[in-house]
């Protein structure tokens, strides 16, 4: 019996969103008489942080404090239309829609403030702390709250904005079938180091190291959080989760993660992520978003690492001990690949 270490790599070019039918998102923003803003969306936050990112994008564009923005994703029946939270599209698609809506709302806000201050709206700026003032003359100012109240009760204006982000559907070339369903690509590369036990077929992930390029990172802590959690999911898909075995028949198989295996808190490996930012020209403030690609490269990297460790190429997930042992038998034993260096040098 012996344990064999191996290293595998994988890289991913990940398309953000999917442009089937244009992949539109809408956002509506309005102010309340207390000078706070509500952003209505139909995309939901599953815990990935979309609400927070939406709030940041809206506050930044409106020029108001983040505390004064509320993001409402309550009801897709009554909210503006959205394709949904999938395909890692949240930050990019909804963020862009929010920027359009917030720009329009900001325009009305400044017009209302201009009317109160008796100046030209083009001369007004916001300080991001709840005030609007004449450029270069901070004393000639009015609060966002007073402006919202004047608009509501005196001027009869709605401080509101509508936003949609739509990429026109890409036509399919009749000759070649070629089309371009993508707008923004995010990129990553991941190295997995594993140890394979040739007697039990068990795979232990020793460490993982990755670099992710996600455009401008709008909320660094949430990006890190998603990347770490998603990598765990990748390990889970690669090595654990399956409704098999079907013994004695499929009805007895596990149906969900209460019944099948997932890595627990004792099975996690040290993971080092480096995030690179190359702002996307069409992203909200340059953002693309991590999403599904947090997990994607983990699977092929682990499969490659297993191959490197013992020479068994498993091409069906998950990579279970049973498959490894069958592979070892078919190969007539362990056939390790070339060793590639020592531990990855963490900064």
């Amino acid at each position: 019996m012996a344990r064999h270490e191996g290293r595998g790599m994988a890289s991913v070019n990940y398309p953000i969103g999917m442009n089937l039918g244009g992949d539109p998102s809408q956002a509506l923003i309005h102010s309340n008489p207390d000078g706070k803003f509500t952003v209505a969306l139909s995309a939901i936050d599953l815990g990935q942080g979309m609400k927070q990112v939406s709030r940041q994008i809206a506050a930044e564009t409106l020029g108001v404090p983040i505390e004064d923005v509320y993001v409402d994703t309550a009801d897709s029946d009554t909210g503006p239309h959205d394709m949904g939270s999938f395909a890692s599209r949240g930050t990019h698609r909804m963020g862009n829609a929010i920027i359009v809506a917030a720009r329009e709302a900001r325009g009305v806000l400044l017009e209302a403030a201009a009317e109160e201050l008796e100046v030209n709206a083009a001369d007004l700026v916001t300080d991001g702390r709840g005030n609007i003032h004449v450029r270069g003359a901070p004393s000639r100012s009015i609060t966002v709250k007073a402006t919202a109240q004047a608009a509501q009760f005196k001027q009869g204006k709605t401080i509101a904005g509508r936003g949609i982000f739509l990429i026109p559907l890409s036509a399919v070339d009749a000759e070649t079938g070629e089309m371009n369903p993508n707008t923004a690509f995010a990129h990553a590369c991941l190295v997995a180091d594993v140890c394979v036990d040739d007697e039990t077929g068990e795979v232990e992930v020793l460490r993982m190291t990755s670099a992710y390029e996600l455009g401008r990172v709008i909320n660094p802590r949430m990006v890190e959080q998603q990347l770490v959690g998603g990598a765990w999911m990748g390990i889970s898909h690669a090595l654990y989760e399956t409704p098999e075995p079907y013994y004695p028949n499929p009805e007895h198989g596990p149906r969900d993660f209460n019944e099948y295996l997932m890595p627990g808190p004792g099975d996690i490996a040290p993971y080092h992520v480096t995030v690179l930012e190359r702002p996307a020209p069409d992203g909200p403030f340059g953002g693309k978003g991590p999403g599904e690609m947090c997990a994607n490269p983990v699977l092929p990297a682990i499969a490659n690492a297993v191959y490197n460790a013992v020479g068994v190429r498993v091409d069906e997930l998950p990579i279970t001990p049973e498959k490894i042992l069958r592979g070892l038998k078919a190969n007539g034993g362990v056939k390790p690949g070339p060793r590639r260096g020592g531990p990855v040098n963490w900064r």
Partner: protein
Amino acid sequence: MAKLPLQFRLNGSDRATFVDPASNLLDTLRRGLGDFGPKYGCGQGTCGVCTVLVDGEPQLACLTLAVSCEGRQIETTSGMADGPNLHPLQDAFMDHFAAQCGFCTPGMLTAARALLAKNPQPSREEVVEAISGNICRCTGYEPIIAAILAAANAPGARRA
């Protein structure tokens, strides 16, 4: 079937209710007493989100017969904060981004609370062991482990 009277202390207050003899503690807390701190995940003892403290011991409320709690002290996450002041574990969970969807959070907090009450300076392995009955689908566990270790070193962490 006739309902049975049941009394216990919930987060420091005396509570009385009537329960079906077969009802579990989770149902009694959530539907009977309106304490939505403990969550319903699997209802079969595998996910840990329903974890509550019964006389200080972590217990799966979905597998606990309500009537077995007569006269006991039940504690849930609803009673963790002291007015506006969060429990150090709650603060640490926020600081370490230890929740994404947050569904596992009540169970994780309760498991951690039970651990720190008994073992104020746990090792990483002891933390892992303490939360090994709780499934988290989002975080990859690392931020949760980091939060519990940090809370152990924070002042007031042992407050029950």
